[in-house]
């Protein structure tokens, strides 16, 4: 299984906490803006799914291609994109990663091969074929990683993309974050069999089913699939079992069974990693608390940066649509 040295573990833990705090702060500011009569757009929290983003990126090359989703803050942060620019983007500032043109659902970072969030469920999967093909054609051994949810696996794009990737043997990691719900709909209304990962068999590719709240399990599955893809072994579908703590977005309240909630709360990925780090004597409670304090400062700095950033200037709109 996976080995991380203590410093790595602390960094990983810090990144997970950063994501959690980022999401909470985002909700706080959005709620305040809504209260002020402002509608700041949609916000999709990834709280509870931090181990997937962080575990995955711990095993990827910086030049690997990444397609994210509307629930993509965690992916962007784990990828290492500047927190300030992410914060600025979700509040529509000119200093944001997409200069305020994209917003929370469309975080892009071309220079890091972070190929964008997507407002269309499953929308990233067909695009992933293209970057994987480009890498194959050029022989660069970059892999492409594309995230989607349990609902996304019900889109036709899932089938077409996995099928074509398998036939072409293109290096793609199809990362299914099964957080049990698609908006208010339970995964049982989206998948009639127990594991989405088992659908890999329909394409003759591996389909590991992974505890998505266990950092090391995520990292290991990602490493394995990425190694295989890099060495010409083709695509992998990985199903990560996880849980979304919050409702789909801020304006759609959801009811969840109490027992289900308790189960998943006990399996919170950050708490779990924290306990493991203490048990392994990597750090102690105070050490974890220090990390959290540092990350709180990082978030606050990012918010301050955002608040002092200008709104985008409509005068620049005209040049934005086409490359000239």
């Amino acid at each position, binding site marked *: 299984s996976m080995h991380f040295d203590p410093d790595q573990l602390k960094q990983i833990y810090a990144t997970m906490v950063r994501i959690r705090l980022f999401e909470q702060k985002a909700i706080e500011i959005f709620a305040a803006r809504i209260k002020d009569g*402002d*509608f*700041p*757009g*949609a916000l999709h929290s990834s709280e509870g799914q931090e181990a997937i983003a962080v575990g995955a990126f711990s095993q990827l090359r910086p030049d690997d291609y990444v397609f994210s989703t509307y629930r993509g803050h965690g992916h962007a942060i784990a990828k290492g994109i500047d927190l300030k620019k992410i914060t600025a983007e979700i509040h*529509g*500032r*000119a200093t944001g990663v*997409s200069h*305020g*043109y*994209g*917003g929370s*659902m*469309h975080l892009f970072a071309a220079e890091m091969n972070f190929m964008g969030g*997507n*407002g*269309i*469920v*499953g*929308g990233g999967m067909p695009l992933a074929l293209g970057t994987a093909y480009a890498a194959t054609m050029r022989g660069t051994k970059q892999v492409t990683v594309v995230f989607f949810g349990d*609902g*996304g696996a*019900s*889109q*036709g*794009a899932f089938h077409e993309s996995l099928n074509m990737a398998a036939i072409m043997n293109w290096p793609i990691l199809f990362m299914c974050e099964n957080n049990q719900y*698609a*908006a*208010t*709909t339970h995964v049982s*209304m*989206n998948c009639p069999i127990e594991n989405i990962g088992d659908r890999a068999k329909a394409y003759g590719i591996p389909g590991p089913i992974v505890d998505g709240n266990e950092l090391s399990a995520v990292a290991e599955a990602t490493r394995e699939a990425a190694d295989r893809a890099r060495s010409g072994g083709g695509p992998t579908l990985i199903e990560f079992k996880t849980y979304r703590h919050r409702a*789909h977005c801020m304006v*759609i309240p959801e009811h969840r069974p109490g027992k289900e909630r308790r189960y998943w709360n006990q399996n919170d990925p950050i708490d779990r990693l924290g306990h493991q780090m203490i048990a392994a004597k990597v750090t102690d409670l105070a050490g974890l608390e220090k990390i959290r304090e540092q990350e709180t400062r990082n978030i606050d700095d990012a918010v301050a940066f955002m608040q002092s950033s200008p*709104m*985008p*200037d*409509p005068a620049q*709109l005209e040049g*934005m*649509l086409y490359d000239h």
Partner: protein
Amino acid sequence: MTTEMATARTLKPIQAMNEALNEAMRDDESVVVFGEDMGAYGGVWALSKGLQKKYGKLRVFDTPLSEAAIMGACTGAAMAGLRPVIEIMYVDFMMVCMDPLVNQAAKVRFMSGGAFKLPMTIVAPCGAGTCEAAQHSQSFEAWFCHLPGLKVVMPSTVYDFKGLLKTSIADNNPVMFLWHKVLYDLEEPITEETWTVPLGQAAVRREGEDVTIVSYSLMVHRVLEAAANLEGRISSEVIDARTLDPFDLDTVLKSVRKTGRLLVVHESPGRCGMGADIVRRVVEADFTALKCAPHVLAGKDMPIPFAKSLENACIPQIADIEREIQNLTL
């Protein structure tokens, strides 16, 4: 227009559509409702709230996150004689289910030489103004009007939300019912209990002498504000098209013959848009009625950007409308 009297109350668009569905289901067993989150939860917009409880899981149900399957199921059910109503959560998402809509639903009757009826209604929110960026802000009404075989409805008043949805459901052809998200919180006092509004009848929302302004959906409200702001200086006649296909050209022509001036205001891009088509029909029907060039004030020919400052610059604002009215009546 059928009406039944009731005690006065206020109504919002979602309630109005929910009432329309409820009455249609009550009166006709073949009306069924389905879509993502449309069952127990009642729809993310609350469109089907309470209906599953009332009419059972066979008539109101959830589906997988598969719009092509939903649109196909809707089309097939209509071919089998049901009268399905589906929701597509944002009209933007229709891009993943265009084939069953465009190549199937809109053409089956024609391709079969008239053998089938297709009584189906697609309800979808549309429009910009909510900072949801390029993939959650489109309307596509021009596409749907360009597509033969589909009727297109875009209400602006709560009264029409209900009255037109009832008529849409009762229609034996596919109807695209597009409602603007920014109208979500609209509230109107209503005295009637139940009513219908026919397809193909525009409404004159304000009478005037100097200029005819045709609009629909959210933009009607902005046009009315602009017209009110110019009150005393310019007398504007404001027409709410209400249904775009069928389109009530007569009402528009009657007005243009009076004012001699035409402005069309819509939010979608201007190129090959509804405004261009209204201009075409008017100039073809009565060129000499026009005292000056007709004009279309449309959204920019761009995707909708996220930031409010950019978004506002891409869609007609009240000040823009006032400016165009003034330009036209110089």
